[in-house]
């Protein structure tokens, strides 16, 4: 994707919108454990259009926000989001991700991987790990991927996502 297809200003606008959605819309939705994570969508959209280093830095910042608001184990969110951002940037260059469903799949996989790392580094017992990774994380991944699809459809002109997939 060339830089002029999605300019920095347009991307910034979408990021701000997702930030507002995260803190204003998400609390009004259903159960917090399965409601979409708009910050992760923002991170994935940004990471898939950035170099791995910048994506990792963005992931670190998002993780720091998560750790500040849920300090069950400070640093776990930062580590998880850093890895997610880095891998998303790499994944984008390895897979052909100029496709809406692939983008949504990236978001869902990123969320599940984020939860895996957070749970492992914050010392969860195996039962909680199993429940979270087999029930709540997939559900949240689905809702988050659905919202990512909506964002991509809404701003398809800015992100130049193919709709014929």
């Amino acid at each position, binding site marked *: 994707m060339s830089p002029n297809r999605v300019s920095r200003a347009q991307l910034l606008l979408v990021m701000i919108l997702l930030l507002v959605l995260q803190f204003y819309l998400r609390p009004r939705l259903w159960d917090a454990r399965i409601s979409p994570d708009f910050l992760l969508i923002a991170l994935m959209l940004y990471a898939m259009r950035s170099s*791995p280093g910048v994506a990792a830095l963005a992931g670190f910042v998002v993780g720091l926000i998560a750790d500040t608001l849920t300090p069950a184990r*400070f640093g776990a969110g930062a580590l998880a989001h850093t890895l997610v951002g880095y891998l998303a940037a790499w994944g984008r*260059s390895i897979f052909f991700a100029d496709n809406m469903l692939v983008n949504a799949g990236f978001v869902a996989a990123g969320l599940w991987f984020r939860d895996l790392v957070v749970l492992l580094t914050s010392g969860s017992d195996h039962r909680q790990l199993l429940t979270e990774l087999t029930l709540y994380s997939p559900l949240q991944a689905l809702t988050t991927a659905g919202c990512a699809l909506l964002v991509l459809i809404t701003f398809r002109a800015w992100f130049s996502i193919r709709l014929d997939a």
Partner: protein
Amino acid sequence: MASVSDRRYTRRDTVLVLLCLGLSFVGLFSPVERGQAIADTLRETVLAPLVWLQARAEEGRTSRVRFRQVTAERDSSSYLAQFLPSLRAENERLRQLLRLSRRLNTSYIAAEVLHQPQATDGRTLLLSAGSRDGVSAFNPVVAPEGLIGVILSVSSRSSIAMSWAHPEFRVSAFTVSGNAFGVVAPATEGRYGEGALEFRGVPYRDSVPLGTLVLSSGLGGVFPKGIPVGTVIGTVRVEAGWERVYRLRPAANPGSAAHVLVLAGGRTGDLARAFPSDSLLEAMRLDSIARVRRADSVAQAARAARAARRDSLARSSPILGGTPTVTPPPATDSIP
């Protein structure tokens, strides 16, 4: 921003990734107090507008303003509106909190729980009240059903509560009958390990029957005496000859709590009377509904009486378009 085609893995990327990973590991392995201090600082400065935004959203979702109006009006239409399932459940929960706050003999601060999308959200809760509202570290946090946790760290506008689901949570407790004392901690094993509690350290000679309510004992000075912690639902293990460990169903669920009360009154007496049993609560609820119905029926009767009086006046007054009431002459027999 690099494109796919010209993206290269530069030295800058390596440095950035290693830096971020290094900082994350520093955060992970640094002392808990330092991590909390950083989190408090960030929450108070950079993230303050976002926390404020979420607090407003929570307020909107839980319709506290609407609830106040409903409570103030208390008329039939709002009564019927409460039968909408979600609104009724929410109102019931807020009413329980209001009733609890009336029964508490200690000062308290009402706070909203700002749930986060992290998998570990149930272990620590972000509350919308902070030191500015009077919250301080180690204040107990309760819901109408019972104990939620304890305040872990406080900043001026928000605070972090450690719920009973946190692996490091402990509370000294005793059975409602008073025959067994022990320590309650999150369950770590067994079929129902997740979301359950364990009542540990109960002497082997003290057997506790199923269904027994377990309350905080007040020992240790953090939690007041008498807050429901859970109900005994089984035995986890018996250490031969000296200890029994029981499984408890927690009294309150931190994952679904939207509003909580932070007890800020320091060390208080027995709070058991503030948390009556389920049957008593149900009786109180039905009694309040009956009172509302009685008030409604009296008001309806008064309205009907006024309407009847207006009608009769209208019929009897010619000024109001009616015909004067004339006493009919006595009937006479007619002769055909």
